[in-house]
């Protein structure tokens, strides 16, 4: 590695000693200059890739969707009766309450190929919501509704796990998305709802 460039200015003395302060260069080694160029090129590449994934391919993160009052949110619909709602052919909305220390519903059953818009909120502490083996991953923050959409293309059980510390029961806080083969689900119902509020969901069933 040469420092040839430096020799041109190296003859000058320190400030006040005939050194032209304005003419100083950074004396960057040619190899290092190329390295910096390469770095910039890499950055442009990363940035483009991420922009394409996020905006052209639609792999998006949670955004600012809706604010609620955590003290009263569970008193009114739709949060008073969390669970799965069918909104179209293979299209669902799942309202999920994350609370100390369970998810309600703790089981969501859908036919393979379904697109589910998942809405999650918390009436108490911060929680997390990540469905294993999918790109669904969001924080659950009291006062906010997290909204994510995902299409389940493979049959299987996909646990959703609370990944933010929320106290004593944090490590046992999880639920499961059951993606079942076409036709095996009781299609009349379509809704699986939570453990506790199947009656509530049945209102919805009627409308189908």
């Amino acid at each position, binding site marked *: *590695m040469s420092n040839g460039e*430096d*020799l041109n200015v*190296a003859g000058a003395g*320190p*400030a*006040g*000693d005939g050194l032209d302060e304005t003419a*100083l*260069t*950074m*004396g*960057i*080694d040619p*190899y*290092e200059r190329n390295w*910096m160029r390469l*770095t*910039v090129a*890499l*950055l442009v590449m*990363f940035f483009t890739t991420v*922009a394409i994934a*996020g905006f052209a391919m639609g*792999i*998006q*993160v*949670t955004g*600012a969707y809706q*604010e609620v*009052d955590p*003290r009263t949110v569970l008193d009114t619909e739709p949060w008073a009766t969390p669970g799965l709602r069918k909104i179209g052919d293979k299209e669902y909305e799942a309202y999920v309450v994350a609370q*100390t220390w369970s998810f309600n519903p703790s089981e969501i059953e859908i036919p393979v190929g379904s697109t589910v818009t998942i809405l999650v909120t918390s009436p*108490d*502490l*911060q929680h997390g919501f*990540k469905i*294993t083996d999918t*790109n*669904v*991953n*969001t*924080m*659950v*923050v009291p*006062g*906010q509704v*997290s*909204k994510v959409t995902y299409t389940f293309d493979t049959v299987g059980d996909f*646990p959703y796990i*609370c*990944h*933010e*510390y*929320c*106290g*004593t029961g*944090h*490590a046992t806080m*999880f639920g499961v998305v059951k993606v079942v083969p076409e036709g095996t689900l009781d299609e009349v119902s379509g809704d699986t709802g939570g453990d506790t509020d199947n009656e509530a969901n049945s209102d919805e069933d009627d409308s189908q």
Partner: protein
Amino acid sequence: MTTIDEPIETPDVETTDLTIERVEKPEFDLSPQEKRFVGWHITVAITALMIGSMMGPIQSFQFSGLDLYPYLEPVIKSYYQGLTLHGVLNALVYTTFFIVGFANLTTMKGLGRSLSHPVINKVGFWTMLTGLIMTGIPILTNSATVLYTFYPPLKASWAFYLGLTLVVVGSWIEGLGFYLTLAAWRKDHRGVRSPFIALGGIINMAMWQIATLGIAVEILTMLLPWSLGLIDNTDPELARTYFWFTGHPLVYFWLLPAYVSWYGMLPKQVGGKLFSDSLARLAFWLFLIVSVPVGFHHQFTDPGVPQTWKFIHAALTYSVFFPSMITLFTVVASLEFAARRQGGKGLVGWIRTLPWGDPSVAAQLLAGILFMFGGIGGLTNASYSLNLVIHNTAWVPGHFHLTVATAATLSFMGISYWMVPYLAGKQLWSPKMALVQVWTWFVGMIIFSNAMHVLGLLGAPRRTPLGSAPYVPEEWNGHLLRVSIGGGILLISVLIYGWVMLRTALGPKVEAHLVPTVPIAESIRHPQLTPVWLDRFKPWLIAAGLLLVVAYGPQFIDQIFNMNLNAPGTDFVPWPS
């Protein structure tokens, strides 16, 4: 005129001839009182590390079903209380005390003078220590089991928040002491470039002061009044935005002192020189301006922050890659320069010529190697949609045990191998054991961190005692075991470290020439040839301020003006008692 006021020697063509040594100036050295003052910082730091680090292996053993918590019951009631202790003592207390202590040393040694107002720094230190005690008591009494991120509405005792505030304020006060000292030095040395190790440490303090405004506001306007019962509710999303304003630059606060050593000291330790003084300075200034306006990359998955801002911060986070790559090149070039000067050959063969037998050098080289992997992982984390795969999974602790817990911690350990003997007037007790410590850390961390990364990719959540989680599939077990094995090796490493430090500190005083000196690397090119704009705070502080306003201003205004204090939390203590 005292010796330190002498004008620096004139650079001439000869000085760039790399084989000729420059004339040594009569050296300034710290007085015994000053050494003791720095020593107090380091003592508190290492004590915190020893206690905090004990929890790490215990956590890792839990993962494979070896549950030691019943034995800790008298003090530590749960995995989470231990994890709070681990995060706070290691990531906040150990780092801050070590960094501020080290900055005292580099400021004085770099500038070749004492602090201009030592009393300011004393006040700063005692404030920090008071804060530490105030924070420690509620953690140990299980009334602040909120982890080191203390997200509301998890509510800790008011003493926890006030204590943390005092630690931060104390560090600000010490920072002020450094600025005044630098200003005093500059008055006596007009036209002379500030010595790099002093400048680097002080830039880091300036960045820290800007960054910590976030948690200062969070605590003083929300958490402290709330924990005192003056207000009933919090705005958790706003709190997160405040926290991560501080939380990301925090990681650069940890790293930059290691960089001061890698750029400004390590080259001397390996018998060489700093490859580029200009680029070393440029890297530090760039860290000052781009470290802060990137915090939303920790909030990619937050509701309540629009995607646009997240994306802007993703882009800005990438810009941190630039000074990091400069650092990689410059540090490696400095090492290569030294190695070749001593007969090192080959494309990579020169690496073997480096003095691997010196534990301080080995520690920093290994820290640097693992940091490269940490950096690659960091790029993944920062990559917007890619973040969805790993956010809040075990990948994340896997990642930052390579950065803060290795790049910073292992470098600090390396630094302490010359610094503690220097401060105490002793010799390092058993450099051999120190080498064993360094290598066990390296090996243990590779196993631990790799397993954590893999677990994260498989979907394992972080902050979770995975050994007792009901959803753990068979498939994870092998990796959970590897976490424990890595943790076990790290436990051995930590214990050796504590033992070496203790034996060194308690060892006999030795003759002055046997005590290590502070390694300060010259640069190949005379610093006086570095452009003036790389030695001025003003343009960079203005740039930092402007970038902050642009990148954070609108979203902050939005969240503050639409603040909803409506989250009370739980009406019971939510953690295990």
